[in-house]
C-alpha cells in the first residue's frame, strides 16, 4: 500500500494560463518500489499514514526542523538547482527516470509530522512525481516534430508576435527563471509534503532546463550530486532501451541508525569534549568573525552575487596547493581567512567550514541531509607567510575532521551561543567539488545552484562541477547584513585577493596582501580627500582685530550682568598684551593663563595671542602637582592668574595677577608683533600614557584653517550668540572663544562650573537667546533628557564632539529641538580641534558618522601594513594636512612616533596617527569605531589609562596597578582602578584626588590578590571583576519609608550590595549618567520632580528624603512582584499573572474596564529589577506567587487570570491554593496552553525575548532586530514599556527563555473547577495549539470565547472590551 501525495503535484497554472499541468504520471506509471507492491491511488487521502514507515529525525535533520519551526512560513530552507541540458531530451523518458530516482531515494518520499514525542519522518512507499513540464511547443523551435502530449501550445497565444527563434528562447528562459524564483519563494509544508519538486522547461529547440527544488531537511549539496548522476544514468539507459544499472542508494533508515549509534557512542562524548576544549582555548567565547561588524537573525531570503573567476584560476590555486602540500580548497579557505582577517581587522578569525560528513561511511551512497558546519579558527600573524597559513589550514582542518560528526547546533548549544548576536562562526567557505560531469544520453548538462539554504551571515560557495567550465563562486549574504553593493565589494575584493595570491611568491608575508582593489585605493586616498582650498595667510588673531575695527560698538561678550563691546574688549586685551610683552611675551613664547571662566579669562587669552605668544590654559581645578609639572615643562615667560595663590609657587613662573593689576597706562591700540602663521597659537596638555601629560603645540596656520572652514561651512553672523562653556584646557574652547570674535557675533560666557549643570545651561541659553553651542555627546544626552531643552528654541546650531555620538542622542535631539541642526565633529588636539564633520539627520539609520575631511585635510584609514582599507573595512585613522599640530613640546621621540611621513600626500608631508579605529562609508564619510590602544574617552575627556596606572602604582602599598573603563551596563562607562598589594583601596582613591584631575580619578579602586593573566602571561582585562560598590557598613537603619525606599533606589541604580541612608551617591560609584537614572526612578516612584542639582546638594538617601518629605504618598514600585493596578474595592481581588516577559502592566487596561469596585493586582516576575535568582521551576515560581497573593489576601475565595505563560502559572497557582484548602472561584486563561503542548517545541532564542517584550505591549514583532528597535516601536506606540531601562530589558532577555524552559519541564496537576478560556482565534503559525488539551488538568467545563485577533492583540482595544465584559458578568455572578 502506498500514499499518493497529490495535492501539489499538478501545477495549477498561473493566471495567464501559459503553463500546462505537466503531471506526466498516469495512474499506471507509478514506479514499483519493489517492496510494497503497486501504488494504490487514493485521491484526497494525502495524509493517510497507516502504511508509512515512521522514523525519527537524525540530529542533522532536527537542526533543520527546529530552524523551520521557528519560522514556519520561511522558504529559506528550500534548496534548488537548475541543470541546463544542451541537446534533445525526451520529457516522457525523463519523467520516467525521475520517477525511478524518486522511488530509489527514501529522503524524497518523506514528510515530517510533529508528534508529542517529537518530529517524525513518515516514509511513504511511493509518491507521485511533482513534475511540471513547460514546453512552449514546436512552433517556437523549428524542425522539431516530436510533439508530445504534454506540450503546452497555449504559449503562442501568450506571446503571439515573436517569430525569431532567439527571442523565443530568451523569453522562455526569462519565464522559466521567473517561475523558478516564484517556486523557490514558496514555503514548504513539512507535514504535508512532498518536500521536493521538479520542473522541466524547454527553452530552445534542443535546450532544456531541469529545475529541482528540495527542502534542506532531506537533502544536502552532495546528495544533489548523487541524484543528478543517478538521473542521468537511468535516463541514458532508458533512451538506449537498456535496463538501468541496479540501484546503489542506501536507505534513510541506515542514516538514522548510524546517527543514533553515534550519539550514544563514546566517540560522541569524545567529540563533545574536543569541542569544549576547543572553545576553552578560544577563551570560552569564540568570537565570530563578522564582515558586517554585527550579527542578525537568519532571514527568509538571501542575496547572491555570482562570479566566474578567470580561466586557469583553479590551476593556479592548485600550483599554490602543490607548493604547500595542500589542496586547492585549502588554499581557498586560507584566502578567505586572510580576507576576513583583513576586513575585520583581526589577527584571529573563525570561519565556518561545511563538511559533507560522509567520508568513511555508507552515507556516501545515501542522498539525504548529512552535512555539518564546523568552526575553523585560524591565527593570522601579519609576519607569517601565506604558505604558512595554508599549512595551518591543512593541520587545523585535519584536526577538525576527526571530530566532524559533532553537530554545529550542539556546539552552539553547549556554549550557550543562541540568538542573533552570539554566532559561532563568521563567513562559511563551502567548496563543492562534486562531480557533475554528466550527460543525458549524450546531451551535456551544466548545473547551477539556485539556493544552497539559509544564510546566517555570509557564505562563499565555490563550485567545481568538473564540467570543464572552471570555478563558479556564489557569495550569498544575509540581506539584514549586506546590501547588494557590499556583497559585490566583498566578492570583487576576494577575487582580487585570490588573483594576487595565485601570482605571489611563497615568502610574501600576510601583511603584504591588501584587500582594496586599485579602484578602491584611488577612491579612499584621493577621491574622498579632495579638500584643497587656497586661503589668505592670516593668523588666529588678525581677523579678530579687523572685526573690532569694523564693528567697535557691537556686543562682543556677555557674562552675567556684564557685557563688553568689541572696542571695549579689544582695548582691554591690547593693554594687557602690551604688559605681557614687557614680560617677554611674543612670537614663539608661551604664556600660561589660569583664570576661572569670566570676562577676564577672555581678555587674558586674547591678550596673549595679541602679544604674539602661544597661550597655555591651566585649569584652576587641576591638582597642584600637575600644574607644577606643566609649568616646568612649558616654561612660560609668565602666567596670568586672577588672584595670588592660584598657581603653585614651586615652578617659579612669574605671575601676572589680574586682581589689582593696573594696565591703564598702556596704549589701547593693537600691539605690533612679528607673528607668522608658523608660530604656535596655543599649547594644550592632554593625558600621556607614560604618566605625564604631554603638551600639544598648535600653530596659527592650523587653527586659522580650522576657523575659516568652520565659518564657510556654518556661516556665523553678527546676530549669532555663541555659548562659551567648555573649560579652556579642552581644545573645543578654542573655537568657542575665537570664532564669534572673528565674525562679529556675541560670546555668551557661562559661569564657572555651569557646564556641568544641564538645568543652568538651559536657563542660560533661554535667557541669553544663545544660537550656537557645543556639547560632549554624553552631556548632550543628559541635557536633552533632564533639562528643559525644549525651552532652548533660540538654538540653531549645536556641535557635538569629544566622544562617539549615539544615534539615540541624535534622534532625541531631533525631537527636543526640531528647529536646530546638530553637527558631529571629530578631531584630536593634535589636529586643531576638529578635522571631520557630519550633519546629523534625526531618524537616519546606523551609527552616526564623524564625517568627511575639512579643508586642506586628508584622512587615511590604514591597515597594519599602512595600506589603505577599502570602504567598510576598519583600520586606524591617520590625519594629514594643514591642521596638524607641530608636535609635542619637548618630546621629539614621541612626536616622531605619532607624526610620521605621509606616503600618500605631497612629498615631505606628515600624517598623524590617531590611535582611533575607523572605517570609510561608501559615501566618503568616516565612522568612528573605538580605540586601538588604551586611551579612552570618558565624557569627552581624553584619558590615557597608563597615566592613571602610573599614579596608582606610585602610591604606598601598591605593588601593581591597572585601570580600565568598564561598561557593565550599556551606555554607562565607569573608570575603575585595580591594584595588588597591601594598600586600602578606598584610601587609594582618596590619595589620587590631589594627583589627578577629577575626571581621571577612578570611580572605584578594587584590590586583587593577583591580576588575571592569559595564557601568554598578558593581563586579561576582560577578566577583571566588576567593582562592587558597598556602603552601609555599620550604617544605621533607614528611618521611615521614604528613606528606606530611597536607600533601595540608590542600591538599585548603583547596583550596590548595601547602601546606608548616609552614603553619598557619588562615593558609591555614581556618575552623572547614573544620576539621571536615579532622578528618573525617583520620579517614577514618588511622582516628584528632582533635579540633578538637588542630588549634588543632597547626595544621600537621608538628605534626599528630607527634601522630598513634603510631597505626596509614595507610589509602589512598578516592577515589584505585586503590582496594585487597582488596590481599592470591596470585592475579592483579581490576580492577573504576567506573560513570558514577566511584566504585568499589560493588565492595566483590563483593570480600568472591570470597574471601580473590582480590585486588580498584577503579579510580576522576580528579577526584573534586582539581582534576584530566577525560579528553577514553574512550580517554585507559582508557590512564590501564592505567598505573595496571600500577603495581599490571606484567604479565599481567589480570582485568578493569566495570559500566555501567565495562564499556565495561574492554573498552577490555582492548584496550589486549592491544595492548601483555599477556594478558587475564578480561573480565566487568556490564550494559554498547557506545558505538554510546548514540550517538544524549540525553545526561543534570544530574539524571542524581544518578541516577548513587544507582545506584552500588544504587538507582533516585524522588523525589530535590536533592543533599540523594540524600544523605538514601543515609544512610537506610546507604550509605557518604552520607559523600561536597559537593565530591565536585559533581565527580560533572561526571564523569557527561563519561562520557555520551565514551561517545557512543567507537569500540571488537576484544577477542580471550570475554566474560562479566551482564544485568540486568528490563524497562527503554531496551529497545533489546542485549548482542549487542558481537559486532563481541569475537572469542570472549559467555557470558551473566540476573539478575532492574534495572540499579541488580545489585550488591546475592542478585544479587551469583550474580555472585560465576560469577566464582569462572571464576577457579578460570583458576587451574587
Amino acid at each position: 500500500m502506498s500514499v499518493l501525495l497529490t495535492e501539489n503535484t499538478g501545477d495549477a497554472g498561473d493566471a495567464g494560463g501559459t503553463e500546462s499541468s505537466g503531471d506526466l504520471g498516469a495512474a499506471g506509471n507509478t514506479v514499483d518500489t519493489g517492496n510494497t507492491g503497486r501504488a494504490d491511488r487514493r485521491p484526497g487521502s494525502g495524509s493517510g499514514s497507516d502504511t508509512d514507515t515512521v522514523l525519527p529525525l537524525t540530529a542533522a535533520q532536527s537542526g533543520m526542523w527546529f530552524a523551520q519551526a521557528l519560522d514556519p512560513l520561511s522558504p529559506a530552507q528550500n534548496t534548488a538547482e537548475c541543470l541546463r541540458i544542451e541537446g534533445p531530451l525526451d520529457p516522457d523518458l525523463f519523467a520516467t527516470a525521475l520517477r525511478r530516482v524518486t522511488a530509489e531515494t527514501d529522503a524524497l518520499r518523506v514528510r515530517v509530522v510533529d508528534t508529542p514525542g517529537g518530529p517524525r519522518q513518515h516514509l511513504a512507499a511511493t509518491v507521485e512525481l511533482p513534475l511540471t513540464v513547460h514546453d512552449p511547443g514546436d512552433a517556437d523551435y523549428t524542425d522539431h516534430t516530436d510533439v508530445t502530449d504534454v506540450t503546452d501550445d497555449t504559449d503562442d497565444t501568450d506571446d503571439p508576435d515573436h517569430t525569431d527563434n532567439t527571442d523565443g528562447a530568451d523569453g522562455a528562459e526569462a519565464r522559466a527563471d521567473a517561475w523558478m524564483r516564484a517556486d523557490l519563494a514558496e514555503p514548504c509544508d513539512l507535514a504535508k509534503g512532498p518536500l521536493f519538486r521538479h520542473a522541466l522547461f524547454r527553452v530552445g529547440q534542443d535546450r532544456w532546463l531541469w529545475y529541482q527544488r528540495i527542502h534542506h531537511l532531506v537533502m544536502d549539496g552532495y546528495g544533489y550530486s548523487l541524484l543528478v548522476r543517478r538521473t542521468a544514468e537511468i535516463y541514458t539507459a532508458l533512451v538506449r532501451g537498456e535496463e538501468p544499472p541496479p540501484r546503489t542508494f542506501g536507505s534513510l533508515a541506515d542514516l538514522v541508525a548510524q546517527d543514533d549509534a553515534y550519539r550514544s557512542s563514546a566517540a560522541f562524548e569524545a567529540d563533545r569534549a574536543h569541542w569544549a576544549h576547543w572553545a576553552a582555548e578560544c577563551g570560552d567565547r569564540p568570537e565570530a568573525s563578522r564582515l558586517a561588524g554585527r550579527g542578525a537573525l537568519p532571514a527568509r531570503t538571501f542575496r547572491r552575487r555570482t562570479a566566474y573567476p578567470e580561466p586557469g584560476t583553479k590551476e593556479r590555486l592548485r600550483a599554490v596547493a602543490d607548493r604547500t602540500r595542500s589542496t586547492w580548497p585549502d588554499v581557498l579557505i586560507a584566502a578567505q581567512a586572510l580576507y576576513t582577517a583583513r576586513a575585520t581587522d583581526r589577527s584571529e578569525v573563525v570561519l565556518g567550514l561545511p563538511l559533507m560528513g560522509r567520508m568513511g561511511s555508507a552515507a556516501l551512497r545515501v542522498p539525504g541531509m548529512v552535512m555539518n558546519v564546523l568552526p575553523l579558527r585560524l591565527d593570522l600573524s601579519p609576519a607569517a607567510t601565506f604558505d604558512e597559513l595554508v599549512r595551518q589550514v591543512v593541520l587545523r582542518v585535519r584536526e577538525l575532521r576527526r571530530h566532524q560528526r559533532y553537530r554545529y547546533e550542539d556546539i552552539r548549544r553547549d556554549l550557550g551561543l543562541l540568538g542573533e548576536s552570539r554566532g559561532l562562526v563568521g563567513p562559511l567557505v563551502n567548496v563543492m567539488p562534486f562531480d557533475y560531469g554528466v550527460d543525458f544520453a549524450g546531451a551535456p548538462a551544466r548545473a547551477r545552484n539556485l539556493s544552497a539554504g539559509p544564510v546566517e551571515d555570509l557564505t562563499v560557495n565555490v563550485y567545481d562541477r568538473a564540467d570543464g567550465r572552471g570555478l563558479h563562486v556564489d557569495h550569498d549574504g544575509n540581506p539584514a547584513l549586506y546590501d547588494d553593493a557590499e556583497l559585490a565589494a566583498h566578492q570583487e575584493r576576494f577575487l582580487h585577493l585570490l588573483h594576487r595570491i595565485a601570482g605571489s611568491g611563497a615568502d610574501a608575508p600576510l601583511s603584504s596582501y591588501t584587500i582594496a582593489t586599485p579602484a578602491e585605493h584611488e577612491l579612499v586616498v584621493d577621491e574622498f580627500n579632495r579638500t584643497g582650498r587656497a586661503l589668505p595667510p592670516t593668523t588666529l588673531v588678525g581677523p579678530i582685530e579687523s572685526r573690532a575695527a569694523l564693528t567697535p560698538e557691537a556686543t562682543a561678550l556677555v557674562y552675567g550682568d556684564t557685557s563688553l563691546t568689541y572696542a571695549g574688549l579689544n582695548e582691554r586685551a591690547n593693554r594687557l598684551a602690551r604688559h605681557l610683552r614687557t614680560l617677554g611675551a611674543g612670537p614663539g613664547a608661551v604664556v600660561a593663563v589660569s583664570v576661572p571662566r569670566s570676562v577676564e579669562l577672555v581678555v587674558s587669552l586674547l591678550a596673549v595671542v595679541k602679544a604674539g605668544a602661544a597661550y597655555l590654559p591651566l585649569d584652576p581645578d587641576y591638582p597642584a602637582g600637575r600644574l607644577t609639572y606643566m609649568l616646568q615643562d612649558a616654561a612660560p615667560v609668565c602666567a596670568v592668574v586672577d588672584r595670588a595663590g592660584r598657581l603653585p609657587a614651586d615652578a617659579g613662573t612669574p605671575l601676572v595677577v589680574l586682581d589689582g593689576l593696573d594696565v591703564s597706562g598702556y596704549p589701547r591700540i593693537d600691539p605690533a608683533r612679528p607673528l607668522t602663521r608658523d608660530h604656535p597659537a596655543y599649547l594644550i596638555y592632554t593625558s600621556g600614557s607614560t604618566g605625564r601629560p604631554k603638551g600639544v603645540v598648535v600653530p596659527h596656520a592650523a587653527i586659522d584653517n580650522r576657523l575659516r572652514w568652520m565659518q564657510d561651512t556654518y556661516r556665523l553672523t553678527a546676530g549669532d550668540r555663541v555659548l562659551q562653556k567648555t573649560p579652556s584646557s579642552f581644545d573645543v574652547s578654542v573655537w568657542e572663544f575665537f570664532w564669534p570674535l572673528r565674525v562679529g557675533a556675541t560670546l555668551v560666557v557661562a559661569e564657572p562650573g555651569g557646564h556641568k549643570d544641564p538645568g543652568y545651561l538651559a536657563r542660560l541659553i533661554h535667557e541669553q537667546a544663545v544660537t550656537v553651542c557645543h556639547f560632549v555627546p554624553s552631556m548632550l544626552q543628559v541635557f536633552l533628557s533632564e533639562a528643559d531643552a525644549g525651552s532652548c528654541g533660540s538654538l540653531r546650531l549645536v556641535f557635538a564632539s569629544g566622544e562617539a555620538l549615539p544615534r539615540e542622542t541624535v534622534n532625541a535631539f531631533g525631537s527636543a529641538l526640531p528647529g536646530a541642526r546638530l553637527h558631529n565633529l571629530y578631531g584630536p588636539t593634535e589636529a586643531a580641534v576638529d578635522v571631520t564633520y557630519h550633519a546629523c539627520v534625526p531618524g537616519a539609520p546606523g551609527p552616526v558618522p564623524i564625517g568627511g575631511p575639512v579643508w586642506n585635510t586628508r584622512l587615511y584609514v590604514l591597515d597594519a601594513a599602512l595600506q589603505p582599507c577599502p570602504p567598510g573595512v576598519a583600520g586606524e585613522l591617520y590625519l594629514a594636512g594643514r591642521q596638524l599640530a607641530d608636535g609635542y613640546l619637548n618630546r621629539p621621540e614621541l612626536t616622531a612616533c605619532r607624526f610620521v611621513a605621509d606616503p600618500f600626500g605631497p612629498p615631505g608631508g606628515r600624517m598623524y596617527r590617531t590611535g582611533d579605529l575607523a572605517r570609510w562609508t561608501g559615501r566618503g564619510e568616516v565612522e568612528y569605531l573605538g580605540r586601538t590602544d588604551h586611551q579612552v574617552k570618558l565624557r569627552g575627556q581624553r584619558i590615557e589609562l597608563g597615566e592613571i596606572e602610573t599614579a596608582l602604582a606610585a602610591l604606598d602599598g601598591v605593588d601593581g596597578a591597572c585601570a580600565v573603563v568598564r561598561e557593565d551596563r550599556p551606555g554607562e562607562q565607569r573608570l575603575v582602578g585595580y591594584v595588588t598589594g597591601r594598600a586600602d583601596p578606598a584610601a587609594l582613591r582618596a590619595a589620587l584626588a590631589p594627583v589627578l584631575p577629577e575626571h581621571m580619578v577612578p570611580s572605584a579602586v578594587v584590590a586583587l590578590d593577583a591580576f588575571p593573566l592569559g595564557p601568554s602571561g598578558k593581563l586579561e582585562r576582560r577578566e577583571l571583576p566588576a567593582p562592587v560598590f558597598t556602603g552601609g557598613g555599620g550604617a544605621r537603619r533607614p528611618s521611615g519609608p521614604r528613606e528606606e525606599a530611597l536607600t533601595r533606589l540608590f542600591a538599585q541604580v548603583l547596583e550596590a550590595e548595601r547602601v546606608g541612608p548616609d552614603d553619598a551617591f557619588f562615593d558609591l560609584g555614581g556618575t552623572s549618567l547614573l544620576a539621571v537614572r536615579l532622578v528618573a526612578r525617583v520620579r517614577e516612584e514618588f511622582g516628584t520632580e528632582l533635579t540633578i542639582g538637588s542630588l549634588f546638594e543632597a547626595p544621600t538617601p537621608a538628605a534626599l528624603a528630607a527634601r522630598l518629605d513634603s510631597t505626596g504618598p509614595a507610589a509602589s514600585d512598578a516592577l515589584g512582584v505585586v503590582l496594585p493596578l487597582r488596590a481599592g474595592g470591596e470585592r475579592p481581588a483579581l490576580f492577573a499573572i504576567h506573560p513570558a516577559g514577566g511584566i504585568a502592566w499589560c493588565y492595566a487596561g483590563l483593570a480600568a474596564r472591570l470597574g471601580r469596585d473590582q480590585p486588580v493586582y498584577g503579579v510580576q516576575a522576580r528579577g526584573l529589577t534586582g539581582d534576584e535568582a530566577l525560579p528553577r521551576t514553574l512550580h517554585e515560581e507559582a508557590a512564590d506567587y501564592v505567598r505573595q497573593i496571600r500577603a495581599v489576601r490571606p484567604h479565599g475565595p481567589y480570582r485568578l487570570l493569566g495570559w500566555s505563560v501567565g495562564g499556565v502559572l495561574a492554573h498552577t497557582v490555582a492548584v496550589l491554593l486549592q491544595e492548601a484548602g483555599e477556594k478558587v472561584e475564578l480561573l480565566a486563561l487568556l490564550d494559554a496552553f498547557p506545558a505538554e503542548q510546548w514540550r517538544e517545541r524549540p525553545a526561543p532564542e534570544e530574539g524571542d525575548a524581544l518578541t516577548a517584550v513587544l507582545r506584552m505591549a500588544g504587538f507582533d514583532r516585524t522588523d525589530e532586530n535590536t533592543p533599540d528597535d523594540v524600544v523605538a516601536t514601543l515609544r512610537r506606540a506610546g507604550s509605557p514599556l518604552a520607559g523600561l531601562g536597559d537593565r530591565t530589558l536585559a533581565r527580560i532577555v533572561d526571564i523569557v527563555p527561563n519561562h520557555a524552559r520551565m514551561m517545557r519541564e512543567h507537569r500540571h496537576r488537576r484544577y477542580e473547577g471550570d475554566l474560562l478560556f479566551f482564544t485568540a482565534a486568528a490563524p497562527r503559525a503554531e496551529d497545533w495549539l489546542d485549548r482542549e488539551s487542558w481537559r486532563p488538568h481541569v475537572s469542570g467545563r472549559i467555557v470558551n470565547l473566540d476573539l478575532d485577533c492574534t495572540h499579541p492583540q488580545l489585550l488591546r482595544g475592542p478585544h479587551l472590551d469583550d474580555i472585560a465584559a465576560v469577566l464582569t458578568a462572571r464576577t457579578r455572578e460570583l458576587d451574587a
Partner: protein
Amino acid sequence: MALTREQIRSDVADSLGENPSDIPFDENLLDHGLDSVRIMALLERWRRDHGVEAAFADLAEQPAIDAWAPLLGVS
C-alpha cells in the same frame, strides 16, 4: 601499468605531505588527514595513469590501502 600497494601508499603519502613509511596499510586514512578532495585528486591521477575504474564513493567509503587494493586493480 597496474598499481601496486607501495605505489598507492607513496601517492597517498605524497598528497598528505607525509613520509610513505608513516602511512599504514590497514588504518583509516582519514585519521591521517585524507579527505574527499585528496581522494578525488588521487582517483583522477590513477584513472589517468593506471586506468583505474573505481568510483569515488568506493574509495571514500572504506578509506584504507588494504581495502582499496582490490578496487584499484592490485593483484
